[in-house]
């Protein structure tokens, strides 16, 4: 093999579709575009098998194939002479390829139709540059497809050190999440990033912190298995998509054919958090002792923005961040208990809403849906909604404004789990949703384990079944 297969790693990113050439036993050549080519080892590649087609039939008769792949950094085309070896329908390689395809399928509302049937393993006989499709010289690249600066090992190490310092310095969960997202932008240039937490009660992921979006998107939700973020959470494995637009167009072409044959009757695509039209997405599960703590998602409108190295170091960061999130939550709980033992803090003065001419809002709690609407507009649901309703009711009945996390934990009506209740993150979510949707009602931290309700308008509370 004249060119080492390992040196073509960037060709297996899926940005430019590969072309597969085969030939039937009676000598009829065939050519087809191929969804995915993956590197297996220094002598093998895996081709995605999604549909029974002519290429697959030819390979069964004649194992010889040629595949042309493209380096997305230079657009140099390479020709790989192949010989079919076997098909895998289980195992790490199959699962890794299947996950990426499932993520695209889920993003397109095509789960179950757009899926991997097998990972076909081929021995690579030779690798050569294609003379007719020469690439640009990588050092001259300055375009949007140029490699990210994150590929510099020393830079990456320093950036990770800086991130690690920020994680250590963060005194609370809110600061931790915000500082990490800000650092991903300032250090790595990842301008659009969000962190979503799993909500056991609803089985969904909810955005708790985001950076780089016109609306902060806090509170936006995605179900497990829905879209790339949902697939990351469900599989607990990272997913990197280099050219989402191309992949989506491919999936939509499949959908059109499927609809034509009555296999996909409706457009099941669901709105997802994040950019409306991302080109690149990288989702990392934040795992601690095997538990899903959160999902970190970075995205970009630029194709091939995130490289394999980016996935690698964000996984390292993700592991670290998951433990930091858990530790911060444990520390906050422990400090809450100490603060509780010391007795109540000094009352925090809260200005009452001015009578006459003051703004007013109708706050409605739908008990069966555990959902709050303000002036008819959705505010929040699930546990944060129950918390808000409890403190608004108490404020209405007694004028009380100061509350403790501990009393929320002890309140049986809220039904918080004894362990890993994620109360701090739910309060952050509630605070941010109020800032965003109803700034006349604020929840202000007042020392460890305490917060103050600040209504700056008259609130008319209504509970509905």
């Amino acid at each position, binding site marked *: 093999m004249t060119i080492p297969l390992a040196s073509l790693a960037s060709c297996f990113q899926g940005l430019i579709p590969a*072309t597969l*050439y085969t030939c039937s036993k009676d000598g009829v050549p065939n*050519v087809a575009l191929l969804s995915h080519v993956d590197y297996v080892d220094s002598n093998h590649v895996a081709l995605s098998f999604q549909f029974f087609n002519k290429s697959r039939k030819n390979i069964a008769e004649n194992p010889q194939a040629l595949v042309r792949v493209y380096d997305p950094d230079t657009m140099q085309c390479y020709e790989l002479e192949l010989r079919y070896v076997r098909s895998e329908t289980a195992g790490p390689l199959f699962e890794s390829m299947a996950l990426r395809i499932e993520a695209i399928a889920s993003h397109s509302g095509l789960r179950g139709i757009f899926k991997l049937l097998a990972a076909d393993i081929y021995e690579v006989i030779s690798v050569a540059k294609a003379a007719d499709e020469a690439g640009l010289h990588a050092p001259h690249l300055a375009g*949007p497809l140029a490699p990210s600066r994150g590929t510099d090992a020393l830079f990456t190490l320093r950036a990770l050190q800086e991130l690690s310092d920020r994680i250590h310095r963060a005194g609370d969960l809110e600061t931790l999440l915000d500082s990490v997202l800000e650092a991903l932008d300032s250090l790595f240039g990842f301008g659009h990033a969000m962190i979503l937490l799993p909500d056991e009660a609803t089985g969904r992921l909810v955005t708790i912190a985001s950076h780089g979006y016109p609306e902060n998107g806090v509170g936006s939700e995605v179900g497990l298995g829905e879209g790339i973020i949902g697939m990351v959470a469900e599989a607990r494995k990272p997913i990197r998509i280099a*050219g989402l637009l191309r992949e989506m167009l491919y999936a939509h072409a499949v959908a059109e054919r499927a609809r034509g044959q009555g296999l996909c009757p409706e457009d099941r695509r669901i709105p997802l958090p994040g950019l409306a039209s991302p080109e690149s997405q990288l989702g990392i599960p934040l795992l601690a002792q095997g538990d899903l703590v959160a999902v970190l998602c970075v995205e970009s409108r630029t194709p091939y923005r995130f490289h394999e190295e980016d996935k690698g170091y964000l996984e390292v960061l993700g592991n670290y961040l998951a433990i930091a999130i858990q530790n911060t939550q444990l520390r906050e709980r422990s400090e809450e208990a100490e603060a509780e033992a010391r007795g109540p803090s000094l009352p925090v003065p809260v200005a009452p809403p001015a009578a006459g001419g003051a703004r007013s809002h109708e706050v409605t709690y739908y008990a069966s849906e555990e959902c709050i609407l303000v002036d008819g507009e959705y505010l929040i649901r699930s546990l944060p909604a129950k918390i808000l309703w409890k403190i608004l009711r108490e404020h209405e009945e007694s004028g009380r404004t100061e509350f403790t996390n501990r009393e929320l934990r002890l309140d049986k009506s809220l039904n918080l789990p004894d362990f890993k209740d994620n109360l701090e993150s739910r309060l952050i979510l509630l605070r941010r949703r109020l800032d965003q949707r109803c700034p006349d009602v604020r929840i202000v931290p007042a020392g460890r384990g305490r917060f103050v309700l600040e209504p700056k308008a008259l609130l008319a509370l209504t509970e509905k079944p």
Partner: protein
Amino acid sequence: MAVISDELKHFLESGVSINIATRDAGLAPHGTRVRAVLVDADHEHVTAYVNKGSAPRLVADLDDNSRVALAFSRPTDHRSCQIKGVCVARRPARSSEKEAVLGQFGGFLGELEAVGIPRVMTAGWWRWPCVALRIRVTDLFHQTPGPGAGEKMG
């Protein structure tokens, strides 16, 4: 013998991704990118223009046998089809044909640009001179990815 409809002719010549496959005596497949395809007035033949640099292996295959396949795919919606045929003649492309070939290939690069691959990145793909292959169309197939890909047209 298969006949190319007016609608299909328009698609084939609209500036899409075109690849040609050949094979040698040992049934090893080969292939390369086609710069442009023009449908003959009889709608039963097409002329495919391939870069001269990729011609030696192609010519060797066509000297052994004349079987070819041409795959067309539009990047913006993946509408795809395949022509099976036999190469009945080959010649150097004429300089008078360069403009038409360049125009069609430029259309394809524009399609790539629409899916996020800027033209500056594909600048190295344009090559001239080309070899012109006259191909008699024997079969036409749908190839848009998904269920039903591979069905015969018409």
